Structures are given as structure tokens and as C-alpha cells.
């Protein structure tokens, strides 16, 4: 029987709105799934559990974007301890000081108006 399943993105953003970094876990694959979706890319199963990350991770890759106008800013890929990776930004330090291997902690930027909330990270020591 078809049902109106919630969009994975909506569930994710609802969690973010509550200050939580949510991800999915595939019991059959025994591993995390990110970005959220309606089936597991490792098994094809549609059985996915929502979990909330502890919010700790490690910088996997980093770059500093130099816009034509405006200040340079960081874009990074973060490996969260639960075994999933996401694109984000490390804040509270200069963008060029973000280092691969650095430990970071999740923080939410609540959006305003049309802007959805965003998961960003800060160095663990300054969290």
C-alpha cells in the first residue's frame, strides 16, 4: 500500500532544527548511510534507521574558497565518528588553519526565513 513517506531531507532538516545531526543506519549493512535516502546503497534494503550523531568527527579534506569579492572561507569534508562523511565548514579559526586530521565538533547554524539550518563544525578544543 503506497503511503506518503516523509522526504529523507525533511527528516534530516527537522533534526537539524532541533540542534541534532541525524544520519541513517543500515542494520543489514551494519554501517552508516549519508546523505539520507529511501534505500540503503550497500544492500538495496529500504530498512534504514534514523540515528543522531554524537557530533564528533575528523577533517578528511579541506579547501579555502577565494571568491571574486568577499573574504576567503573554508569548505571541508568531515568524517563523523559514526562512519559517515558530509560536506561542511570549520568555523572559529582562519580558513587556511583548518587541517586534515583535525578533530572537530558539530554545531548548528539555525537558518532564517527561507534558509534551512546548516551543520557546521568547530575545533574540539574551542567547542
Amino acid at each position, binding site marked *: 500500500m503506497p503511503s506518503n513517506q516523509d522526504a529523507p531531507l525533511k527528516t534530516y532538516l527537522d533534526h537539524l532544527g532541533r540542534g541534532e545531526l541525524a544520519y541513517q543506519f543500515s542494520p543489514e549493512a551494519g554501517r552508516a548511510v549519508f*546523505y539520507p535516502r529511501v534505500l540503503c546503497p550497500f544492500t538495496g534494503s529500504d530498512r534504514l534507521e534514523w540515528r543522531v550523531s554524537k557530533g564528533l568527527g575528523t577533517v578528511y*579534506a579541506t*579547501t*579555502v574558497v577565494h571568491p571574486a569579492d568577499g573574504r576567503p572561507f573554508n569548505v571541508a*569534508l568531515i568524517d563523523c565518528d559514526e562512519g559517515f562523511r558530509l560536506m561542511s565548514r570549520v568555523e572559529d579559526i582562519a580558513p587556511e588553519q583548518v587541517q586534515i586530521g583535525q578533530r572537530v565538533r558539530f554545531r548548528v547554524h539555525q537558518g532564517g526565513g527561507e534558509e534551512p539550518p*546548516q551543520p557546521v563544525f568547530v575545533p574540539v578544543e574551542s567547542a
Partner: protein
Amino acid sequence: MDGLQRGSAAVVGVAESDLGQVADGMSIIDLMAQGVKRALDDCGLGLKDVDGLFSATTQSRLSVLALAEYLGIDPPFLGSTIVGGSSFEYHVAHAVGAIALGLCNVAVIAYGSTQRSVGRKQASVREVNPYETPFKPFMPASAYALAASRHMHEFGTTREQLAAVAVAAREWALLNPAAWEKKPLTIEGVLSSRMVSYPFTVRDCCLVTDGGGAIVVTSAERAKSLRKAPAYVLGCGQSVTHASISSMPDLTVTGALTAGKTAYAMARLGPAEIDVVELYDAFTINTILFLEDLGFCKKGEGGAFVSGGRIAPGGSLAVNTNGGGLSYCHPGMYGLFLLIEAVRQLRGECGARQVKNCEVALAHGNGGVLSSQATVILGTQATL
């Protein structure tokens, strides 16, 4: 699964359309049609012979229909696989398969772009990825920059080594009259250019030009009677590892590994037997990653491999002999030009940049953000 048969088809005609900055008002289909006419002239065939038509572009949703209409033909076999800049390497494999099945006999693969004239924003639709776009990566450069950061971290690759790729490309471009860039470039010149997305300056990034072209693929049987020496399709391979950079399993290993293995197996050849290598150099890290993944050096040693002029004219391996996307031409989906240059090298048509005793050429296309990888190995009659 039998798969494609080594040497069953050949690339028999190749041509660029106008390149660089094309005349005001030229459309992408005008450029495709220029390429088609010139490529057919190159092999002595005509539009009446074309029964397979392929195209890919970012500027038209139904480009193959627009092209068929423009050319006034109704080919029974059409292909519009679009996987970014490697689309044309996919088209070659699909054309070889279609020819083997008798679905067509003369396939034309065309491309056109006016991204320089109309502006990069007009030339391709910005797609919103809710898990990436909010962080404002400068795409596609930032995705490749993230891969470069990881390569530098794991293997000690340096900005100077990345710059060596751009310098080698420029040296080749100076030997190619059709190249966009006409002035010499130094490593210092790359490093001191405007930073775009660290570690890339603008000189680590491909050009933004207009351009297009076409190639003609037909059966090995028909190829024998045409105007120029055929470039036989010896091997093809493809791999897709991800679409967005945050989903790439390992930023230092690309799908070129799988694509290359498949193509080498079909060709019954290995990297040691390749005489000229045409790699999709959208960014300097690409050349390093693909040289590693295609087996020309070990993983992690690409930085050292490209240094000291080793891939420049006169070096130990001829790589991107037309000057590449970095210095020759990059209209957004560069993959077709890899095939054009590979064929010309096999024919011995390349003048000052001609690689000596060139019997086997490898063209490797890249699409998306290191996402879709496709290898085509071409060879002369002697390699059959």
C-alpha cells in the same frame, strides 16, 4: 556477456569546430554541424552515410534532436548519454556496440559549447544539492581542490608538483597552433596567480573557452576503404564512483582504476605499451590521479612522476600533447578533444608536437567531479 570486440570498429574522421572565442551569434548546433562536416570530409564520407548520431552538451536538453534536424537527417540510432566531460568516451563504446549489432554503420559523435561567449552561468544549469550547496563550494574547482588536499596530505604531493602539470601542458600548447594559450608559463607563474580554491590558482584550472567538434566511427571493414588510416578501437572501459564529491569513497583513488583495467583487458595491452596519453586535465590534480590510476606510476607517486619535465615535450611520457584543457581548449566537456588528438597522433598529423612511432594511444575522459571515468584505447593497423 561477450562485450565489445577489440578492433571491430575504428575512428575514421575527426575535426574541431571553431575554437576559443567563436563569432558572435554562433550556436552550439552551428559548432556541432561545423565539426560534423569537417569530420566527414576528413574521412571522405557524407551526411547520407550517417545512420548513427550522438551528442552531448550542457546547453541543450535535446541536442541530438536539434542536430538531426539541423543536418536534415533521420538516423535510426541516436545516443545522448550525458555524464559530463567523459560522455564522448562513453559514446565511442556505445557506437562500437551499436555497429557490432548492426544498429548503425557510420556513427557521428558531436559536441558544441559557447560557454565563453555566453558566460559559464548561462552555459550550465546550477544544480542545488541540499547537502553541499549551502557551504558554497566553488564548483567544480573546490571538489577537485578537496581531492588535491587529500593527495597532498597522504602522499606529500606539493603545489609545485601540481604546477608542473600546468607547465607541461603549456609547453605542449606552444607546439599546437590551435591552442588558446600562446605564452610560456613557469611554476612560479602558476603559484603566484590568483588563488581560486586552495591549493589551486587560476593556472591549476582549465580554460573557459568556446568550441566543439565531431568524430566518425565505423566498422573495421568499412574503415579500410576511407581516406585516412583508421584508429581502431582496441579497448573501452567505464566506471562511476559517485556524483557529488562528498560521496566519493576515497578522494585519492578514481574510477579510472576500474575503467583503465577494463580497457586494458579488452585491448590486451598495458600502460607500458601506450605511446601517447591524453588525459582529461580539468585541474592539475587530474593528470596526477589518472597517471596513477591508469598504471603509469604507483599510487602516491604521481607528483614526482610529473616533475622535471617528464610529461612535457621531450619527456619520458607524452601526456596531453595538444596542450590539454589547461592550455589548448576547454569548452566545458572536453572529452571529445582527447579522442581527436589521440587519432591525429596515431595518423602522424601533429607536426611539431608529433610523438614518434606512435602506434597506441590512450584517451581518458572524466566527468562531473571525478565522478564518471571512461577510457578508450586506440591503435593503428599494426596493433590489430
